[in-house]
């Protein structure tokens, strides 16, 4: 069997790390201590696994790992952090919407087929130390168009076009009787925030990005959206604990 030693090494990784390597997905809800074990296992990956097929997805190292660190800082030792990540991309079955034909107005274009793919590649839920619950969902939405052209000499061409946008939804459900105050400055134009009062006030921040950020900018985009949810509560709470 090829790559026998590498397979054996992968077999010794944390189960979540194994699944990330082989299936490119993660689904786990565990306290920060268990996630620290996953991070420790992930730190061995580059030195152990050389096969291109089993490389960690780029978003795993640029988004997932830092996000685990950030969430671990804000959750209590026994509070679970739930993360569902799917790095398989938008091309897998189940993410593709129905296809439809667009009306054609020029004689050289015979047919235009359009469809959308929705790729909710990151979902997070964490119970924070201050009693609030944080939920995040990041979705890539891609429009595909396949254009069938025929020129005057009856030569056929098929062209495809893609346009991807991203939506980041974040929600923070505050503990009862939490003090909520509108921040003095409005968020950036690309972030919309809604406040819903009730027994537990809920803050929703939604960002629609005109293009999918590059891997190196993706974490900052998510953290910037999350920041809005924490600007509404005073940081001057007493009883600070580790």
């Amino acid at each position, binding site marked *: 069997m090829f790559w026998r030693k590498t397979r054996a090494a992968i077999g010794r990784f944390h189960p979540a790390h194994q699944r990330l390597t082989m299936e490119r997905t993660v689904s786990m809800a565990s306290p920060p201590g268990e996630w*620290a074990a996953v*991070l*420790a296992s*992930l*730190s061995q990956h580059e030195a152990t696994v050389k096969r291109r097929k089993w490389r960690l997805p780029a978003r795993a*190292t640029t988004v997932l*790992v*830092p996000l685990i*660190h*950030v*969430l*671990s*800082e*804000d959750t209590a030792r026994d509070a679970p952090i739930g993360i569902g990540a799917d790095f398989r991309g938008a091309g897998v079955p189940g993410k593709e919407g129905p296809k439809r034909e667009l009306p054609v107005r020029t004689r050289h274009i015979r047919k235009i087929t359009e469809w959308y793919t929705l790729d909710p590649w990151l979902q997070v839920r964490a119970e*924070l*130390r*201050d009693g*609030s619950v944080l939920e995040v969902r990041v979705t890539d939405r891609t429009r595909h168009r396949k254009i069938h052209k025929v020129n005057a000499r009856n030569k056929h061409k098929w062209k495809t076009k893609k346009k991807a946008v991203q939506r980041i939804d974040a929600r923070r459900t505050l503990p009862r009787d939490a003090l909520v105050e509108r*921040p*003095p*400055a409005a*968020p*950036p134009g690309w972030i919309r925030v809604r406040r819903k009062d009730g027994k537990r006030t809920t803050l929703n921040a939604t960002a629609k990005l005109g293009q999918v950020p590059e891997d190196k900018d993706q974490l*900052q985009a998510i*953290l*910037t959206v*999350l*920041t*809005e*949810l*924490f*600007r509404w509560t005073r*940081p*001057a709470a*007493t009883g*600070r*604990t*580790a």
Partner: protein
Amino acid sequence: MNPCGATTGFFVLGRCGRPSVTVCQCGRRLCAEHVDPQGLCPECSGAQGYADPYRPGWARGLRRSHYRYSASAYGDPNLYTTYDSYDRSGFDQGDDFDIGGDTGGDPGDGGWTDS
């Protein structure tokens, strides 16, 4: 008891308060969990670069730059100064210790976040 002066949390800021075992070069007292291998506090360690992203406590080094970036992105200078003053105010809440005396300087001059 000399409590650890490290800031905890990323969005939900807090302070550690565990018994300290050493002192950072910036004067902050640190417990065993918040001191890095070079004996630095998370802020001083973060100022030297983010190093290995798999290192435990890596986000503590990212925190300050994130607040600074967010204050700029939101056009809300209070965001960064709130983080700064919050760190300081945590030590002025009627506790029986005062970080100002330990640092040997005016905590209002940004010593916490500019260390």
